[in-house]
């Protein structure tokens, strides 16, 4: 990880010296992670790509303020999750579906997914449903769940991004997973008459 950071720092220094075309390398290297986060956080492909573009533009404009105290990847992810939260706040919340609403609407399909075998390969519709499910997670849990479960970042990286300890990341992640699982289970329980 440290070697990668040195490599990034060298590229950034060259960009700041005037070789702006090298920023292409940075975008190529990180676009999948950033776009994956945006897509899962916002659950709208076009909006996610627009947001990801804004993030890379913002990072380029703020490159001078990157001091190398954390890795570039961490710095970029901080911009990513802050910007995604801003976009979500500005977006008309009427368009967003709550976790309860989604489970009520798609409960049977979600439940069917829970009973698939371990080696089950997701079809496009199932992936779409899972993305909707992730983006319906309460916002306080969504960031940490996407960073860990989708982007597969280490606890250390997440702690750096969220400015907290590794123990805190583990604790928050545990609570987030339990809370979401609880809601999925609770809302699929049969109604006793």
């Amino acid at each position, binding site marked *: 990880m440290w070697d990668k950071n040195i490599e990034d720092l060298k590229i950034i220094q060259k960009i700041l010296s005037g070789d702006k075309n090298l920023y292409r390398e940075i975008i190529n290297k990180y676009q999948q992670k950033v776009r994956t986060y945006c897509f899962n956080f916002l659950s709208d492909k076009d909006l996610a790509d627009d947001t990801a573009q804004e993030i890379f*533009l913002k990072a380029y*404009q703020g490159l001078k303020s990157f001091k190398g105290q954390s890795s570039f990847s961490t710095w970029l992810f901080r911009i990513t999750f802050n910007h995604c939260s801003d976009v979500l706040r500005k977006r008309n919340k009427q368009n967003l579906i709550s976790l309860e609403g989604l489970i009520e609407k798609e409960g049977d399909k979600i*439940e069917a997914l829970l009973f698939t075998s371990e080696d089950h390969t997701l079809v496009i519709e199932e992936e779409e449903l899972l993305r909707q499910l992730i983006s319906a997670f309460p916002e306080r849990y969504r960031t940490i769940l996407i960073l860990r479960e989708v982007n597969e970042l280490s606890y250390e990286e997440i702690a750096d991004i969220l400015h907290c300890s590794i123990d805190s990341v583990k604790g928050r992640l545990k609570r987030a997973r339990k809370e*979401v699982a609880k809601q999925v289970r609770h809302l699929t329980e049969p109604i006793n008459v």
Partner: protein
Amino acid sequence: MSKKVEESMNYEEIEEKLFSLVGKTRKADFSSDFTDNVMQQIYELKKEDEKKATVIPFKKSISFVTITAIAASFIFSIFSINESISTENILLAEVPDSYYWAFSNSEDSDLEVLIGESREEI
């Protein structure tokens, strides 16, 4: 259907399965178009900066002293207006070129601006 979950899966199992499924979702595909789009915006950003710099050269348009003087006089006017409206409803202010300005917001009229060569004329 729901009963099946109730009977055969506990919280831990649901949690494990749910997040193993989430982990299976595909990551975004690499897109060279995406990179090109961002780079295009960066080039345009540069052009825009250059354009701004050539269209409005600060030194040629107006001096710093002039801007400061205008700003100071404007701020002073605003403060004076607020104060006079709340107390005497009228303000007389002398301006550098010997003209007088008066602002009035008496109860039977809207805010008026009067300009004259002397207090008497206003």
